[in-house]
Every structure is written in C-alpha cells, then in structure tokens.
C-alpha cells in the first residue's frame, strides 16, 4: 500500500470544521500553515487564532483524528506563531460562507491601527446587505466575534472582529 500523499492530507484537513463556526473549515480559515510528511509521521504546522480560544484544543484533536483516518501513522501538531494569524488569511470562499451563515466577515485588517482606533470599521449586514449597521456589544459569544444590529432591516447579527 502506498503512503497517502500530501494532497490527501490537505483534503482531510478540509474536513475539519471550526468548532465555533462549523460552516467553515480550518484550511479556508487560514489556520493550517503546512503539512510535512517525514519519517516520524505527519507534522501539521498550525496557527492558533485567538490565544485564549477554547476551541483550539478541539481543533488539534480534530486534526489528529482526520489525518489518522486518512492513513497517517503518527500526527504531530506544531504551533506556529510567526507570522501571526490574521483575519486577512480567511479565503474569499470562507468569507462568503460566513456571510451566508449570518456572520459578517471581517473587514480588511489595518496594521497601522493595532491600537487606539476607536472608530469601528463599516460592517455590512449579512441579511440585507446594508452598511447602515452599528455595534451593540464589542464582545460576543466567542472571542472572534462582536454583536451588531442592522438599522435598515432591524436584524441583530454577529460580525467577526478584524485582527
């Protein structure tokens, strides 16, 4: 039996959902930096999103389970912090999925405004598309999200923070 290819493993990783936003997978969210096949098994270079995110443990387990099922003998998940994960790493496909799911995708990140920007970015309502929205809470149900309301269609919605 031939060993599975890197492509097989990448495909398997596309089956690992983000536990807090199960409509997207960890590859399209930009969390997987590399897959290396070595003598001692498969090593996945993984970039954590938010450092306190409790879903990270679940994701690491999910990676091991998925790659084992795809034929890997041993799986190690190495944390890679450089360069740090940013919401700009999220693919256009994943952004579209987030919007369909009802979460406004993050605005492009601006490196020059890492602190002391009190003006939030304009965020589009995922339901009706209006930009006439406002933040109702700067933190939400997960570290990556905040709460908004659309003043056009009156619908409350979640948006991803731009980091």
């Amino acid at each position, binding site marked *: 039996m031939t060993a599975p290819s890197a492509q097989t493993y990448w495909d398997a990783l596309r089956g690992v959902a983000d536990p807090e936003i199960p409509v997207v997978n960890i590859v399209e969210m930009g969390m997987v930096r590399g897959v290396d096949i070595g003598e001692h098994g498969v090593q996945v270079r993984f970039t954590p999103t938010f*450092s306190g995110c409790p879903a990270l443990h679940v994701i690491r387990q999910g990676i091991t389970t998925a790659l084992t099922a795809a034929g890997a003998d041993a799986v190690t998940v190495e944390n890679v912090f450089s360069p740090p994960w940013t919401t700009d790493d999220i693919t256009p496909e994943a952004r579209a999925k987030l919007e369909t799911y009802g979460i406004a995708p993050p605005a492009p990140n601006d490196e020059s405004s890492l602190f002391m920007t009190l003006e939030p970015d304009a965020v589009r309502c995922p339901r009706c598309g209006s930009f006439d929205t406002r933040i109702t809470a700067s933190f939400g149900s997960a570290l990556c999200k905040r709460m908004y309301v659309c003043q056009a269609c009156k619908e409350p919605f979640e948006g991803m923070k731009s980091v």
Partner: protein
Amino acid sequence: MTKPLILTEALKTALIARFTALADDEITLSHRVAEWTGHAPLLEEDIALANIAQDELGHGTLWMGLRTALDGSNADALAYHRDAAEYRNAPLTELPKGDWAFTMVRQYLFDAWEVLWLDTARQSRYTPLADAAGQALREEKFHLQHTALWVERLALGTPESTRRMQAALNQLWAYALALFDPLPAEADAVAVGLLPDVAALQTRWLELVRGHLEGVGLNIPSASPLPYSRHHHTEHLPPLLADFQRVARAFPDSQVW
C-alpha cells in the same frame, strides 16, 4: 549589521523573570475579571468581561509557554502549585474587584500598559517573544478600546459615577505606576534589545492615559511609593490563589480538565 545574539545564562534568567511576571499578571487579573461573570451590571458587559478574562488567560498561557521553553518547567505546576510568596504579579492585579468603576479603571490602566509593552516587544531580538507579542497585541487592542470608552462614559456620566471614577483612580494610580518598576536583573536584557525598557514605556503610558483621563475631567492624583511589590504582596493574593488553585490542588493527579 547587528551582532548575532548569544543567549547567556544571565539573559535567559532575565527573560524567565519577565515572562513569569507577565504570566502572573495575566492569571491574577483574569481571575479578578472573571469574578464578574454572572454579576456584571449588563448582559453585554458580563459577556465582555468573560471575553477579556479569557483573552488574558490566553496571554498568560503564551507567556508561560515562553518561560517553559527556556527552563523546561511545567506551566500547570507553576500556575496551580505556587504559593503567594512565589507569585510575581504586580500588586495592581491582585486587588479585589471593587465596584464597576474600580474594575474599569484598573483594566484601562493595565490594558494601556500591556498594549504599549506588546507594541515595543514586537521589536524584540528574541523571536519567540516578538511573535507572541504580535499575536497578543491583535487581541489586546479590543480591550483598550472597550475600557477607554467605559472610562469616558463613567467619568462624564452622573455625579455619582464621576465620584466613583475619581475614587478608583486615587486608589489605583500608585499601583499602576508600579507596573513600570524594572525587574532586578532586566537591565542587560533591555540593553541588548531583548526586552522593552519599562522606564521609556512609562513616559509613553503617562502621555496616553493622562491625556485620556484629564480629557474626561478626572484629576491625576499624586502618588507615594507603594509598600508592596512583585515580591511583597498585599493580603489579597492568598485568598485569590486559594480560589483559583482549589480544584487543581484537590486533584493533583488529574490529567484532563
């Protein structure tokens, strides 16, 4: 071209001391902030403080990770099995949570310090620190935005909220200044570009927070040196640790939480 960096034992010791101080600040403050869970004045603030506590604990994990990479120690053992005398947090972070004004002023003063420290640490010649600082800064900016707005809202709110804000600031100012006390063995690590110079940071911090606080009508109090330090804690730390460490100490052999 800069000379290649040789991490001597003395420099390593300085890094370990700073990472421990940072981790202990985050752990203790996270615990104090988390005490609001279920008790905050608004549902949105309950959620916000739970988020902030979770972020700070995440940062504590980052700093502990940097330390354990240098000395092979165990992060859980350090967090859950050190006593108050071995904790190296600044006394600011261990003070009881107080009222809402006290919590917001403390968090604002701490967030401003942390954001500036992280911003400078992104230039560290110790790459693992530069990377971790870049990661944490992306999260920390949301705290500072949030607490800066609360400072403004309460300082300009009602006579009662203004009074409470000024009282909190009077009580906390000396504790906040003590965040900038250099660690004993840090000078060489600063000189070679491994760690931020806290004295220089204090100048930037004062400019930032003074402008904001005075801009909303609060008075900066005069401050005399504290009788407490990272090595000499207030009476409030032991009960905090007793609470935080209770489960881990009751089940020292548990592997899964």
